[in-house]
C-alpha cells in the first residue's frame, strides 16, 4: 500500500480522528509517521497488526526518546506480506510516572525492547508481565538516557 492509502485507511478507523490526536506526517523522515494519544495506542496497534490490508506483523524497532518536555516512544512497523512500513509515535508529557500501554501481547519482541525503554527512560508499560530493568541493576537510580540524567562520577563531558 502506498502511504496515502495507509493514511486514508487508518483515518477511516476512527470516528473523530482529532479526539485521539491522530496525526500523519512525512516530514523529515523516510517513513510515514503516525502519532496518536497513548490511551488509544494499544487498540490502534492491535488493528494495525490484525487488519488484512495493513498487516503490520513485524515490529523491528522500538525506541524511547526524551524531548526534554515530553517522552516519546517510537514503533517502527513493517509488513512482511505487503512490504510497507509505518512509524507509530506516542508522546506523554508526564515525566514523573509516564505510563504507556504495552504492545508485547501483540508482538512478543516488544517484551525486551520495552524493558530496555523502561530501563533507560523510565517509561512504564502497562500490562507488561515483567516490567523490570533489563540491563542495569535493580537498584540503579535514575534513567540514564534521559537528557537531564547526571552522573558526575561516570560521565565525562567533553
Amino acid at each position: 500500500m502506498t502511504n496515502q492509502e495507509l493514511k486514508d485507511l487508518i483515518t477511516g478507523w476512527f470516528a473523530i480522528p482529532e479526539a485521539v490526536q491522530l496525526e500523519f506526517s512525512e516530514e523529515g523522515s523516510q517513513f510515514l509517521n503516525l502519532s496518536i494519544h497513548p490511551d488509544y495506542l494499544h487498540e490502534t496497534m492491535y488493528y494495525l497488526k490484525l487488519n488484512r490490508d495493513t498487516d503490520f506483523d513485524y515490529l523491528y524497532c522500538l525506541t524511547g526518546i526524551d524531548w526534554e518536555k515530553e517522552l516519546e516512544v517510537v514503533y517502527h512497523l513493517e509488513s512482511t506480506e505487503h512490504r510497507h512500513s509505518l512509524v507509530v509515535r506516542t508522546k506523554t508529557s508526564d515525566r514523573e510516572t509516564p505510563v504507556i500501554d504495552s504492545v508485547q501481547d501483540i508482538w512478543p519482541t516488544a517484551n525486551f525492547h520495552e524493558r530496555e525503554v523502561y530501563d533507560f527512560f523510565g517509561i512504564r508499560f502497562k500490562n507488561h508481565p515483567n516490567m523490570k530493568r533489563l540491563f542495569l541493576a535493580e537498584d540503579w537510580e535514575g534513567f540514564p538516557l534521559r537528557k537531564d540524567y547526571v552522573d558526575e562520577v561516570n560521565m565525562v563531558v567533553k
Partner: protein
Amino acid sequence: MSTATINNNFKSEEYFINMGPQHPATHGVLRLLLTIDGEIIKKVEPDLGYIHRSIEKMCEKDSYQQIVHLTDRMDYLSSHINNEAVCLCVENALQLEIPERVKVIRTILDELTRISSHCLWWGVMGMDVGALTTYFYGFRDREMINDIFEETCGARLTMNYNIPGGLMQDIHPNFVKRVKEFIAHFKTKIPEYNRLLTGNVIFQKRTIGVGLLTKEDAISYGASGPVGRASGYSCDVRKHHPYSALDRVDFKEALATEGDSFARYRVRIQEMWESISIIEQLIDNIPEGDFKVPTNAVIKLPKGEYYQKVETARGELGVYIISTGTKNPYRVKFRSPGLSNLSLLNHIAVGGKIGDLVATMATIDIVVPDIDR
C-alpha cells in the same frame, strides 16, 4: 502403598541453575537463569547488562565521524557492517553521492566479514556440541580473512574503515590477490566442514528437531538473519532493501523451512557459499575512482530522522538517528539483531534438555556486546 502416595513420595521439584556469566557455552558474559526439572528446561530468563557501555548515550556527545568507531564495539564480529550502517545513514541524510568504487569495496568487505563471522560461529558451534576440533579449523580460515582486513583496514576486528563519505584509505594493492587466494582456499574447506560436522550422525541427532521456531513466531519475535530465514521467513535486508553494491549482484537468499537448529546451521553454511559468490562477482570489477568524497570537517545533519537497516552476520541491524540540526545527534538508537534473537530463546528452548539449550544457543549465534550495546 497407593499410586498416589508413591507419586507423592517421588514428586519432582524444579530448581534454578545459573548458566553464566562465566559458563563456557554462553560466549561472553551472558547469564541465563534456568528453571529446570531434572534435565528438562522449564524456563530460560536471560539476565543482561554485564558489559553494557551505553553506546547510545555516548553517541549523543560525539560527532558523526566519531560514532562510527563506537559501532565496532557492538557486534565485534561484523564491525565493518556496523560501520557501514552508520555511514550509510549519515550519507543518506546528507544526500551524498558515493563513488561506485566505495560501494563495491564496502560490499566485498561486508561479505568477507560475514564469512569470517560464520567461520567463527561454525567453530564455536562444533565446540558447543562437543566437537572441539572444529574450533581450530574455523579459526584457521578466519585468520586469512583477518589478515586481509589487517592489511587493508589496519585492524583485525575493530576496523573503523568506513567514514561518512567513503573509506579511510584506498584498498591495499595486495587486496584483490589475497581475496582471490582466500576464496580459492575456502571453497575447498566448506565441503570439509560438511564432511566433518554437517553430515555427522551425532551432530544431526543433536540439532534436527531441536529449538523449533515457526515462521509466525519468528516474525512476531522479531527474528532476523539466519534465525528468521531458517524458519522460512524471507528477511534478508540485502534482498529487500539493497544497499551499497548489492543491487547489482546476483545471489540467492539462503532459506530453509524447518525452523530447527539444523536448519539454522544449514542456512549459515549456505550463506557462506552465497557470500563467496557475491565476492566473486565483484572482486574483478572494482571500478576506478575516488575512495571518498570530501565532507565537511564538522558534519551537521539536517533536522529530521534517519533510519538505515543493514544485514549483519547475525541479522538486521537498524541505525536510527534523530538530528536536530546540530553537530551531534539528538538520539541514536541501534536496533541490534541479537536482542530480538535472544528474546525468543525462552520460547524455543523450553521443553528441551540442557544439551538442547546449548545447541540452540549456538545456532542463534549471539554476540553479547551486540545485545548489551
